């Protein structure tokens, strides 16, 4: 039986790009409603693994997956799975804000409409609530018809967060959501992510160890050996930060601290 506390679980997950092994043997568990921070140096496959959780790697034909990923005990890598339904349950926020070339309002109502939320009023209502949730409503309520590209980077990233939230996902994947933002905007987004604790299971990839320490309930440390990424250590944030089991983790955390 699966542990009901575990929302998302990867077992022995390996990723190949065009035949070359990129990530090998990752076993990762994310607890329901908690924030799991994924840290590690560049090029150890953190983002690659993250994109597997909503099958975004399907878009890259050169990418091959082995192993298993279970969402609420259901295998999501099996062929024939309704990928679109999966992606609605598992949202993703990219490193750079990727607002669509539409108006601010339509960035939110567009996905709703095509997921079959029939009534316009309902869509507008849901969009308003999502914007309020990310604290953007007051800033944009008078210019919902303007292109989303007119917003600042931080505003766009919050718009992307609202766009993911409007679909009411169970899991949210964040791929270094603050790395393209200035410190102020970054703090706003970080606060928002913290406020989602309890409602949504969150996996966040970050380079910023201080951020991981502030946000995370659990931490997973990735490392790479001969160009192949793997999971070095995972556990509760307190345990990993206070007393890491592995020497590599200890050195990484210490080095980054110093």
């Amino acid at each position, binding site marked *: 039986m699966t542990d009901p506390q575990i929302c998302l679980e990867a077992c022995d997950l390996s990723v190949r790009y065009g035949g070359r092994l990129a990530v090998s043997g990752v076993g990762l568990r994310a607890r329901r409603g908690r924030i799991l921070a994924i840290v590690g140096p560049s090029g150890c496959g953190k983002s690659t693994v993250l994109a597997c959780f*909503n099958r*975004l790697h399907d*878009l890259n*034909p*050169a990418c091959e997956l082995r192993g298993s990923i279970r969402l609420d005990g259901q295998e999501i890598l099996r062929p024939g799975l309704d*990928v*679109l*339904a*999966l*992606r*609605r349950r598992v*949202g*993703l926020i*990219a490193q*750079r804000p*990727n*607002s*669509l*070339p*539409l*108006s601010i*309002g*339509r960035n939110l*109502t*567009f*996905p709703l409409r*095509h*997921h079959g939320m029939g009534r*316009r009023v309902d*869509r*507008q209502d849901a*969009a308003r609530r999502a914007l309020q949730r990310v604290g953007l409503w007051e800033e944009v309520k008078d210019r*919902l*018809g*303007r*292109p989303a590209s007119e917003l600042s980077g931080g505003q766009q990233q919050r718009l*992307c967060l609202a*766009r*993911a939230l409007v*679909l009411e996902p169970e899991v949210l994947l964040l791929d270094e959501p603050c790395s393209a933002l200035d410190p102020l905007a970054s703090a706003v987004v970080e606060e928002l992510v913290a406020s989602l604790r309890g409602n949504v299971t969150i996996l966040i990839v970050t380079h910023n160890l201080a951020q991981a320490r502030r946000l995370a309930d659990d931490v997973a440390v990735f490392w790479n050996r001969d160009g192949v990424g793997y999971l070095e250590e995972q556990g509760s944030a307190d345990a990993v930060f206070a007393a890491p089991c592995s020497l590599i983790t200890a050195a990484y955390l210490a080095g980054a601290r110093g």
Partner: protein
Amino acid sequence: MARCGSARCDRVIDTALALLAWLVALLVVGMVGWIVADLLRQGLPRLSWAFLVELPGDAGRSGGIRPILISTLLILGVCLAGSVPIGLATAVFLAEFQRGHRGFGPLVRYSLDTLAGVPSIVFGLFGNAFFSITLGLGFSILSGGLTLACMVLPLLIRSMETALRAVPAEHRLATAALGLPQHVSLLHIVLPAAAPGLAVGLVLGIGRALAETAALLFTSGYVDRLPDSLLDSGRALSVHIFDLAMNVPGGASQASATALVLVALVLLINAFTGWAARRWLGSLHSTTF
């Protein structure tokens, strides 16, 4: 390049190249100026509203070009109706579904590259044999338009594919990450974002089709009457210029006026499509919710 290292030699070659560059620049100005000036000098006095709306008389020496304008537009219409759906579909297929270097895509691309190299007179031969005779369409606007459709297809597809590939991959990732199916992302995000580029492709196709003569000589024919239907023969502007210049003594000034109309039409369509594309893009953003 000759081997000579001295600074003096350097200077001589540099001056020679500079001379060549400036010479060519002047030559281009001169050539365009000469051609345009001659057309204007000969054609402008003949050009008037009446010229556009009157029927031709005396084998084209007098009167206007109304039936020729109408035939040209009909041929162009048939050409676009035939080429745009196939062209857009192929461009979408190549740009969105065939990113690898294997499979069906490269075959299509290779075939189109070959098609792009086929001389226009061979398109005329083919159109005559296939559309006019085998399909029984005869010398008609339909035969001519469809022949042109085959001819502009590679150009249309290549430029439309470029436009689609210019749409940032993040948009596709963003829609995919929201769990939206590919056709939604295509229709609502990718195609609108690529619209100006697609329009440029369309304009290139139109320009090519309007300029074509050889492929039309034996498909849409020479008849300068007003066409009753698409199965009638119709004379395109380019064919009219050719006929007046070659077969009608004293037709030169009428041919100049027609050439002016043709060149102006190409420029006008260019300008209009650019404007329309900008408007379309603007309307994309301005609808709230």
